[in-house]
């Protein structure tokens, strides 16, 4: 069969049921994330916990099951889903905006800025508050990382402006410069760090969802969920950008406004996610490609698709992270790459030449 004809087109979106498929996949992943894990919970325990949520008294022998599902797993699975969705949507947006399949959220400085601020919090504020810091200590790192990530992106966007416009190439170079500078300062801070702090930094850069709490979720919903939804609304202008910046303008797209909102929304959603989980690579880069290879290039599909798939992937990766080395835990960033990279390569070979535009 002619491979040309096998390329899904913008019009074919109706025939490929992305939404039910993606929602089903995410639902299954969330269910698995709630039901499975190193703390074995039998069917009776699960039923008791569910009955308890619906109002029945909790048998004391299932108190631990209720705590594992309600206090540990549920916020963790929801955090994974939201952060994964944010990374997927932000990655798809960056690739569309920079018209480059290798683009990912790191390009706009958000990851390196968040890392710089997180490392600063670990190295400089750690000694000031001690290992068992109180409420402020628990929120210090996320707040610092969020401000650092967003700040680095704003600096990059400012540096990337020439006159009133911000040409994509200039933005990319500004991103490279911001990343290099943030990396250098991070290196300086790591030099100042003691051995234990260096280990804390290493684990932070590999990502973990182990610190998830219910009280994080309203913040995550607002700063990751909402921007991801808003990014999906940029699908049409991003489609126009497929043709190039000039053509997008000719088609009625306010290109500079599009760039500003896309970069700002992606930066907010990634910075807020990274703030609670540390750096999680791979999702933002490869998930949009997987969606594109299966469903085609239309951003009306790619954006929500990358959000749904990113969410499902991170939930499953976290399930693997807490199960595989039980009772210890692997860094989730390691898992996302270990699951994702081979799958991506397989998909790439299945679909032939892949991305040649």
């Amino acid at each position, binding site marked *: 069969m002619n491979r040309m004809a096998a390329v899904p087109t913008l019009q074919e979106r109706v025939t490929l049921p992305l939404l039910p498929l993606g929602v089903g996949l995410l639902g299954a992943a969330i269910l698995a994330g709630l039901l499975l894990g190193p703390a074995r919970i039998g069917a009776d325990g699960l039923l008791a916990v569910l009955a308890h*949520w619906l*109002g029945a008294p909790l048998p004391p022998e299932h108190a631990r099951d*209720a*705590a594992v599902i309600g*206090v540990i797993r549920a916020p963790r699975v929801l955090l994974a889903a939201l952060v994964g969705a944010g990374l997927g949507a932000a990655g798809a947006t960056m690739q569309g905006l920079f018209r480059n399949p290798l683009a990912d959220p790191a390009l706009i400085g958000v990851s390196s800025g968040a890392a710089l601020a997180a490392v600063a919090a670990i190295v400089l504020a750690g000694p000031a508050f001690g290992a068992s810091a109180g409420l402020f200590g628990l929120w210090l790192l996320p707040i610092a990382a969020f401000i650092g990530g967003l700040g680095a992106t704003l600096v990059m966007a400012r540096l990337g402006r020439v006159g009133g416009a911000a040409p994509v190439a200039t933005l990319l170079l500004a991103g490279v410069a911001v990343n290099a500078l943030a990396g250098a300062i991070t290196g300086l801070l790591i030099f100042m760090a003691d051995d234990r702090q260096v280990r804390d930094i290493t684990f932070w850069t590999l990502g973990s969802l182990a610190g*998830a709490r219910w009280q994080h979720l309203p913040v995550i919903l607002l700063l990751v969920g909402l921007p991801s939804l808003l990014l999906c609304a940029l699908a049409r202008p991003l489609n126009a950008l497929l043709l190039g910046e000039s053509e997008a303008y000719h088609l009625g797209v306010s290109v500079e406004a599009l760039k500003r909102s896309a970069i700002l929304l992606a930066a907010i959603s990634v910075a807020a996610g990274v703030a609670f989980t540390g750096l999680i690579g791979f999702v933002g880069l490869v998930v949009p490609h997987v969606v594109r290879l299966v469903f085609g290039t239309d951003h009306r599909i790619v954006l929500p698709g990358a959000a749904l798939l990113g969410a499902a992937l991170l939930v499953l990766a976290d399930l693997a992270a807490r199960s595989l*080395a039980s*009772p210890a835990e692997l860094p989730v960033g390691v898992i996302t790459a270990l699951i994702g990279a081979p799958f991506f390569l397989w998909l790439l070979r299945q679909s032939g030449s892949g991305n040649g535009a």
Partner: protein
Amino acid sequence: MIRRRMLTASLMGLTVQSERARAAAGRLVTIGGAVTETVFALGQGDRIIAVDSTSRFPTKVSALAQVGYLRALAPEGLMGLAPDLMLVSEEAGPPQVLSVLRAAGAPVAMVPDEAGIEAVSRKIRAVAQALNLEGAAVADAVTADWRRLDAPIASLQPVSAVFILSVARGAPLVAGRDTHADAMLLAAGARNTVRSFAGYRPLSAELAAALAPEAIVMMDHALAEAGGAAAVLSIPSLAVTPAARARRVIGLDGAYMLGFGPRAAHARRDLARLLHPNAVLPGLPSRGWT
């Protein structure tokens, strides 16, 4: 609504935590080498079902379940072990995970982790109290052993020394002020030459030469990883020191030397003997935990 139910579940967990009687009979997870050693010293080692990666003594703990590095704990992995009590060094983390564990009603008892004989005593008493045991006997025995060394070591001429954590990252990573290594060097009749900074930092070549330590102290596994004494002394920043000329590189088990657990007094004596080979130091009684 559901959230409130979850909160009651965690509150029920908290009542479990306060049931000391159950804890006294139950299964333990110990996190931190000194914490694990202390539980064994108190005769409760058989109750431990899992330890962290810094717990390496006594050697039979290697057969237990491993919860990983103590700064990267896994909340669900720990809950899944269903321990009746987790004895956790204050070194452990990340703090977010400890807060998750507390929210889930996990029975967690924190154990202080500091250097010095008073800290050893506090540590032993804290573990004993969490286990509803009397810890004074062990704490007093360790303190008595430690004190027997005070006068003989005080009479020695201090050896200037530097403690090297690792040489793997280029410049040697050395112990400054406010480290367990600094405290142990001082206790064993040495003078830590690196006091211009706190914590473990890379040492510049010029500073190493200027400090002129007479002895280099390392953890034995770090010494082995570095390729032995000859390899360490061939590092340019160390080759010019008096320690290199005298070929004095001392290796000692890390958890033993720096743990400040129940073996602290014996570790002090052993390190002092290595630093002062010609000195006469009193022998210490063999204890059940050494």
